[in-house]
């Protein structure tokens, strides 16, 4: 049996998967990226070895913004290509639109037959990204997933600023005004969903399913709110946060000379 390793060093978390030649997911790991991508990569290497998969011996592809900091990877592939391929593996279908809400960027990727056909990515600004949610959650003294759960019970409030720093001031003044926490949480998620949806409309007219990947795909409320905003069902699965790593592992299938 041949094995393939994919490592996705994101801005917040590092995700690692091992696939066998039937594309079965054998192992998945997640850890905070921390301040040094190289240290994180070495920690991953240790964990993989303990589990019996030596990345020096097996085909290994790195992706994510820290992809160049994985010394033992055979090659690097961008997170756009990897998320597209990984989502296609998870969700199937000939045509797919992938919405990936990452730590510091949000990507909308059009996939046909498992290959990326088009994509859009947010500009420099962090609106509509995981970082935006993280900052607001900190201000509300909540964990990001708790904020998303709470949001479902709220409503009636909005944040108008797209800039994370200004939006944080808005949240602080909402707190000061005595606004209910669930209403503020609702406003935060609503802001992200609207921003992501406006980006997704740039690729509008694309047929096929829409799916959500990245760190927020386990938040049911985010998925539901996106479905309503985009007027189409947005699919998500728990492995969605590993989509990038899965795509990297799939890219490792083309590396020759390691598996025998």
């Amino acid at each position, binding site marked *: 049996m041949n094995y393939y390793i994919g490592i996705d060093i994101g801005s917040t978390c590092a995700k690692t998967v091992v696939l066998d030649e039937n594309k079965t997911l054998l192992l998945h790991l997640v850890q905070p990226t921390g301040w040094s991508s190289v240290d994180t990569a070495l920690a991953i290497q240790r964990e993989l070895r303990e589990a019996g998969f030596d990345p020096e011996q097996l085909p290994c592809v790195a992706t994510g913004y820290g992809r160049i900091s994985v010394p033992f990877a055979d090659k690097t592939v*961008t*997170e*756009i*290509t990897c998320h597209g391929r990984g989502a296609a593996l998870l969700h199937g279908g000939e045509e797919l639109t992938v919405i990936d809400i990452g730590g510091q*960027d949000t990507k909308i990727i059009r996939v046909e037959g498992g290959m990326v056909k088009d994509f859009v990515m947010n*500009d*420099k600004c962090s609106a509509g990204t995981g970082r935006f949610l993280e900052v607001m959650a900190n201000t509300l003294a909540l964990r990001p997933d708790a904020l998303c759960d709470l949001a479902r019970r709220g409503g009636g409030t909005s944040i108008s600023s797209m800039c994370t720093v200004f939006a944080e001031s808005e949240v602080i003044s909402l707190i000061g005004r005595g606004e209910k926490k669930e209403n503020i949480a609702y406003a935060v998620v609503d802001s992200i969903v609207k921003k992501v949806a406006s980006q997704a409309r740039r690729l509008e007219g694309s047929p096929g399913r829409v799916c959500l990947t990245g760190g927020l795909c386990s938040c049911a409320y985010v998925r539901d709110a996106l479905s309503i905003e985009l007027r189409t069902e947005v699919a998500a699965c728990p492995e969605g946060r590993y989509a990038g790593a899965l795509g990297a592992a799939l890219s490792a299938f083309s590396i020759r000379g390691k598996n025998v």
Partner: protein
Amino acid sequence: MSDYVQMWKDLGMDLETHDNLCQVLPTAFGDVYLSQENRPEGMNFWDFVVSEIHGIRPSELLEAQKKGQKVFGTFCVYVPDEVVIAANGIVTGLCGGSQFWVPGGEKVLPKSTCPLIKASVGARLDRTCPFFRIADMYVGETTCDGKKKAWEILGEDVPMYIMDLPQMKREKDIQKWAEEIAAFARKVEEFTGNAITPETLGAAIHTINEKRKALARMYEARKSKVLPISGKDALLVMQIAFFDDPVRCAQMTNKLCDELEQRIQDGVSVFPAGTKRILLTGTPLAIPNWKLHHIIETSGAAVVCEEMCTGTRYFENLVDESQTTLEGQFMALAQRYMKTNCACFTPNTGRIDDILRMAKEYQVDGVIDVNLKFCCLYDTEGYTVEKALKEAGIPVLGIETDYTDTDAEQLRTRVEAFVEMLG
């Protein structure tokens, strides 16, 4: 560039600030240019010009001024060099392409002005570019709102003449541009004290046509599957063409082309076979803006053509040389210049036709539409450009960026993903 300190002092430049630029430019040029492998030998000339960019050509211009010649600084490919040359004047491009000058421009301009305008105004007001000090007269045009208002600020400080470019391409607009050229000619005559005759204008038209042909010849070589020159090097030739003496520019470019054509015959390419071929379209890349070319050419792709002012818009279409009266020549000039397709025109379907034609001619795998931040015209036209390309089945990536390096890694991810997408 240390030999020119006295000259810069005499020009009233801010030496201390200018030194900072002199210190960073060689490193940037080394990293981006000299790191390339197997460059054509003919590029030595341009490497030399860059190494002395604020020295050698400025000192030539000063010498010419001593002999009574006037220097006209321009900012746009619609301003006809021929008219100035016909009156024994000299044209030099003035567009700023470095973040170095942007804060100077931001002192007086809104933040939401494009970096090219901010850099140009900053270079003037901060006294950190010799070309801006040397030019006796600036010639502006009405190609965008940002420029129109910037001229009013620049005009406080230096003689400023503005040509009113039509915004549509009807017959009466071409007629109007011919009248604008005639009026500009009168201004140039008055300012230089030299008469423009059909003979001098005819000779000037010929000179600039020869320069256009030489630059077109370089682009012709880039159509080859065997790529004899990198996009970065070709861009440098284009950028310097705006500053250099037109006769020498044609001469050196033709010499370079001899070498490029030989390379094609010998199968010498600067990129491995299978490197993805990219057409860049969009706003100009003024010197020393090499950012996107560098990212693309270090991400497994090559730039084979620029549908830009610092590209095909500068040399495509020749001026009819058969006219023998000034009136006929002004009209011939107007007809040629009005063929250039800038997003300031509406409608501007000619540019879409150009891009689709070039995508074929240069055998490109994909197109990158790059626009300077806050350039409303090109940014908006990007929609039409990208739509037309998608309909034609040509992959396209839209990018908006400025002169800073802060988005370099994000851009790299996008460009790499685009190249991966091309397969």
